[in-house]
């Protein structure tokens, strides 16, 4: 026992900072602290708030258990928002990532002015959301918007200007189009960078074997970019879910509730009605939705990695 104690006492002490196994953790510490304070605590606070009743200046904060969740599940406006969010998400994902892929395929070709074309393509993405929203709001004004001139040129049989953003049938497609226009350059640039990493020899070999451009795309390009497309898909879902400025500025969730996504519903509950608890409850539902999408992505990525290993 004495010998053991001696051994312990005489064991050389390694300074904390010199222990190599701690070094990575020390590096990660600032971001962990940041995320803890500004992300984790608010999430926990939001979850705890969803179990209370808290309407500012009307009720005092009190614990209500699952009452807000019961209300949410029976609230047809919540289900409408879920539906709208999914439609917006899928439509934006399809159009933005699809357009991004097409743009990347075009910009991957050699042609004169390619660099300029790439720079011009990034403009929508570089433009901040707010000015973009204001520009489209003016373009789409049913009375004075420039789009009315185009509409009458392209569709000479229409008698009256379409109502655009206040039309129940047009509002969602327009919001999707604007969001996709704003987002597609990002997806395009990422996909393009992956395409440029594909060895050119593969295409040359395929050409020698008699493959046409469609076959080259199907058997060389696509397998190489699929992991990136998957990632872009998840990002597109998350970006679409989070989209607030463009939707709120263009339609405010209307007309009626046809563009009222979950984020807009959270905002309306919390900051129009000052019902913070119910806003938090809808927020938790949205959090779960994004979490499930992320898990799905992780699953798909692992499955793909496993298939590649085989």
């Amino acid at each position, binding site marked *: 026992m004495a010998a053991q104690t001696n051994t312990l006492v005489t064991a050389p002490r390694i300074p904390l900072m010199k222990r190599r196994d701690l070094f990575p953790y020390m590096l990660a510490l600032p971001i962990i602290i940041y995320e803890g304070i500004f992300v984790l605590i608010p999430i926990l606070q939001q979850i705890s708030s969803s179990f209370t009743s808290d309407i*500012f200046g009307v009720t005092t904060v009190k614990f209500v258990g699952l009452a807000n969740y019961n209300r949410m599940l029976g609230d047809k406006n919540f289900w409408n928002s879920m539906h709208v969010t999914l439609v917006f998400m899928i439509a934006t994902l399809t159009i933005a990532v699809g357009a991004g892929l097409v743009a990347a395929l075009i910009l991957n070709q050699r042609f004169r002015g390619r660099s300029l074309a790439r720079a011009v393509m990034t403009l929508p993405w570089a433009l901040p959301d707010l000015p973009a929203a204001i520009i489209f709001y003016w373009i789409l*004004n*049913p009375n004075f918007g420039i789009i009315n001139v185009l509409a009458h040129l392209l569709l000479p049989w229409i008698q009256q200007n379409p*109502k655009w953003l*206040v*039309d129940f049938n047009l509002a969602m497609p327009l919001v999707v189009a604007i969001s996709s226009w704003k987002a597609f350059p990002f997806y395009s640039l990422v996909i393009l960078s992956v395409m440029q990493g594909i060895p050119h020899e593969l295409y040359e070999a395929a050409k020698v074997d008699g493959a046409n451009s469609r076959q080259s795309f199907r058997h060389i390009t696509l397998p190489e970019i699929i992991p990136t497309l998957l990632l872009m898909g998840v990002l597109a879902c998350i970006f679409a879910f989070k989209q607030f400025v463009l939707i709120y500025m263009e339609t*405010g969730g209307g007309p009626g509730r046809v563009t009222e996504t979950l984020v807009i519903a959270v905002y309306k509950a919390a*900051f*129009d*009605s000052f019902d913070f608890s119910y806003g938090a409850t809808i927020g938790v539902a949205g959090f779960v939705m994004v979490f499930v999408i992320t898990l799905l992505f992780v699953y798909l990525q692992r499955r793909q990695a496993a298939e590649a290993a085989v």
Partner: protein
Amino acid sequence: MAEQDNSNSAKNKNNVSRRDFLKMGAAATAVAMGAPVRASAPFFSRQTKTEVNFFTWFWTEPGRGAAWRTMIKKFHDSQSDIHINESGYGENDYFKTILLQAKSGKIDGDMYTETPDGFLRMQKAGFTSSLEDVVKAAGVTVSKAQDMLRVKGELNGLDIVTVRFGLLYNKALYDKAGLSEPKSIDEWVAQCKTLTVKPNQYGTFSPHVANDPFTTWFTLQQWAVLYDGVWAKGQTPLLTSDPVIKGLKLFKTMYDYMPQGTDAATANKLFASDQIATDMVVSAAVNQWKVNTDDPNLYGNLRSAKPFWPGNKAITRIHPVCVNPQTDKAKQDAAKTFLAWLYKKENYQQLIELCLDVIPAIDGGLRPEYRATLTWADGFDAETAITVPDTLGDFVYYGDELGQVVVPHFQDVLAGNASVEDAMAAAQKEAEALAARVFTT
């Protein structure tokens, strides 16, 4: 080894290390900075001015902001103990921000202004205090309308601007079309039809887009009042009542003569450039068309129609100024001193004239000579006031939630997807569910 150590010590004594240099530098800087502080200490000890933050949206409102700055300068010139600082946001952000700040426990104002419904929330949350001593010090008699600001009989806010809905019209456009002031709702509808020449001129406007939720609901409330209706009585929503249905049907008819899909800010610009003939607006809005217009004759051409609708009523909104009881006592006292000065008859009269307001909050607050200059105010004056709590019943605490029930259904009507009756029947069910939820908890 010992020698080496000694030599190092000796060396260190002669050569200042980088660390010591920094220490000495810091000490010297501290001494240098301390010197003027000590020298100026008597100046600061003489500084007894109390700084008061006045939190309001007025600063950004055309005309009203300049009026308030003039009055505050006059107050500053009249004494040297209190200094009023500007604090606040533009109107649309302000109403949300003040409630969010209050929710977080502290607002940016030692005194602040509120809407009638916002006042009720702030009062319930403990952000108002008695201002009876201010009224006493000012030596004025406040209007009966201010009773809605009383808590246990004591005024907790002082009306600083009362606004009332009315039908404002552009007399030049009316004259050009050979029309005269409407005497009935049917006549108004017919005139709007005549005055609409799309896309250059529109008969009327009322906010209706979803990204303008506050203004849309705020104005829509008046359309039911046009038929002597209210939206709720106590805890009972009245969305299917005859006056509400008639009011919304009138709106739907008038929608054909509006710049559809246009937000209120754009419509205000259209009105400023003589492109909208009539506008159901609050009296305080007139101020903007005196300064923010391309037509220098516009202000002189504005008139308000004498009420031609059943009941002659118009929603009248009292906007109080309150003193924040959660700030320092010295600041509260300073804020009250300022308000007592402002509420003195001659100062109040000057404020109301600079703001181009028309409804006084105190007896004798409006000089007849000034009133005679307001060619646009006759209609507003002839209306009978109805308050926001009278219009919304107990839903006044849930006004925005009720608006979120009504407005989306009404947009269905505007789009032609539903009749007013069907849309309001659906809205009534939702409003009843809202009442069951909020009034039983």
